[in-house]
């Protein structure tokens, strides 16, 4: 029954969210005795150069403000409530900016870059991989695959560094870093959008080039098995045109499983993407995360990590819920895997 599947899948989603919140809350408290506020205050005080009496008082005041003087379970419940309202408190490094505001500013950059780059590499790779398994495909593809497979073994950001050196530092075709020219104000004007695209080319290419081989390999494997199906043989006996057999019979049947694996690997993609942003100084979540880490801004770190986990959880949920609708073979309770 479809309701059963729906509830089970939603249940899993809730568990993931709960696990994420709990992990983020307890990990720092389990792993160290250090109090993030004291740590932060100590740093501020040290950099300001006035060590001494006032700090203790200030820490107390801050602790009360962040609720750190209350018992752990109260802190946990409070934290849970806040997180569900997407309230991660103030950024310690950018006080008094709220964490969620920083994230909202960075998120569109990340989603725009990753979304488009992942989609392009997925489509190119899947089509290439499908053609590789197709006996009538052009031969030159066979020689391209090892090349892209080799590149797919290399982490995105390392490829990014090489691209940066070749096309930004040495030849200056593309900008060295950032998401838009320094000094311009983001707007929806045409020249600004053009600049944004120009800045996105290199980080995007790093992700696309490194991703194509992976998708191609996976698709090729599925196509080889898919082409052995009886309905392919019968389609040939029907004297259908090659294109129709390829797209409507062979490709169509493996496209959905391939698309689910897109959702499953999203976590890996984002992990690699964080570092691509760092390498290119792209104004998204990854760069923000690096700033949070170097400023020991635990609120900001936990906010970003939570958002990333939620994005992935929502994406997999959507795929799992859409899959049975798109694939007539699968009913809700009888899902593959």
């Amino acid at each position: 029954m479809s309701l059963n599947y729906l509830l089970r899948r939603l249940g899993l989603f809730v568990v993931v969210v709960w696990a994420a919140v709990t992990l983020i809350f307890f990990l720092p408290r389990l792993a160290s005795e250090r109090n993030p506020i004291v740590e932060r205050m100590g740093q501020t005080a040290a950099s300001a150069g006035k060590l001494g009496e006032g700090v203790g008082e200030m820490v107390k005041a801050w602790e009360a403000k962040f609720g750190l003087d209350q018992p752990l379970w109260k802190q946990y419940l409070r934290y849970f409530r806040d997180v569900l309202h997407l309230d991660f408190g103030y950024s310690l490094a950018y006080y008094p900016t709220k964490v969620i505001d920083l994230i909202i500013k960075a998120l569109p950059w990340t989603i725009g870059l990753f979304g488009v780059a992942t989609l392009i590499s997925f489509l190119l790779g899947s089509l290439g991989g499908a053609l590789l398994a197709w006996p009538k495909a052009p031969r030159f593809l066979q020689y391209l695959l090892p090349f892209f497979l080799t590149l797919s073994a290399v982490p995105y950001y390392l490829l990014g560094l090489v691209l940066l050196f070749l096309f930004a530092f040495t030849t200056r075709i593309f900008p060295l870093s950032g998401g838009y020219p320094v000094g311009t104000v983001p707007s929806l004007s045409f020249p600004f959008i053009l600049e944004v695209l120009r800045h996105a080319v290199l980080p995007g290419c790093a992700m696309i080039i490194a991703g194509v081989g992976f998708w191609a390999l996976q698709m090729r494997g599925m196509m080889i098995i898919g082409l052995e199906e009886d309905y392919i043989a019968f389609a040939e006996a029907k004297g259908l045109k090659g294109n129709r057999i390829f797209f409507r019979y062979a490709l169509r049947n493996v496209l959905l499983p391939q698309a689910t694996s897109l959702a499953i690997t999203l976590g890996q993609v984002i992990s690699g993407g964080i570092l691509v942003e760092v390498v290119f100084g792209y104004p998204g979540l990854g760069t923000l995360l690096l700033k949070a880490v170097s400023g020991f801004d635990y609120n900001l770190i936990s906010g970003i990590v939570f958002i990333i986990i939620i994005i992935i959880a929502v994406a997999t949920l959507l795929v799992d819920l859409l899959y049975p609708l798109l694939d007539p073979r699968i009913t809700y309770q009888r899902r593959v895997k």
Partner: protein
Amino acid sequence: MKALGKRLSRVGAYCRRNPKLVSGVSIILTLVLFWLIGSLLLSPTRAQPISGLPDQPPSLRYLLGTDSNGRELLAVMVVGTGLTLRIGILAGAIGLGIGIILGFISGYYGGLLDTVIKGIVDVLLTVPPLAVLVVIAAVITRAMTLDSMIVIVASLSWMLPTRTIRAQVLTMRERAYIQVARLSGMNSLEVIVKELMPNLLPYLAASFVGATAASILACIGLEALGLGPQSLPTLGMTIFWSISFSAMLRNMWWWWLPPIIIIAILFVGLFLLTAGLDEIANPRLRRRM
């Protein structure tokens, strides 16, 4: 002697049919050799700061130049390769060990335990590993050592092995020879060790290489964010330092390029190794190309 020769020639014949495995093994062995020979010729202290003049381009005295802290980069590469391999293999082994235990329990005994293990694995697999690692690493930043790095990275490298091994055990459990072994009075542990393990070897090997590659990926990622062991000249930390010292803008290619090349070679080697082992495990993929 003759039997050995025959055996070797059969191994040789197989290797010709599985070039991926051979090239993967040779690439990894080359890196190990690089580390071994390098460690013999170069003192590891030369990978420490102020062992040489800072910012020197490659020359006869400093074959790969030095960084802004006066580390000799050739020595850094040698030590870093060794450290990276060590982290990867140890974390991969721990991950595989946990994976074997949980995978066998889950697949062989089934029931509630299976549901729980499978659930946890499924949930954890959707979480981006780097995000969790960042949270952990950010908490212990300065206290990070090589050992804690290994443990942290290993803590996220066991899910995939668990999943693969569970799936394989599930299919093998129902095969006839396992049933025979059970009926002939072997206890579960004996069945697992004597009957299941040998047949799973290619999968275990592939899982190990996969877990090692994932560990190295995670470890270098953390290091590149500056979250690795601060005082050790690992490959990832070298990339982090080269970025934070703007090595590229200062045209110090000898700083940022060598670690990338070594990491790239390492990953290509691991990738070929996995692909080669996959062919042993799933001969079906071998056809065409």
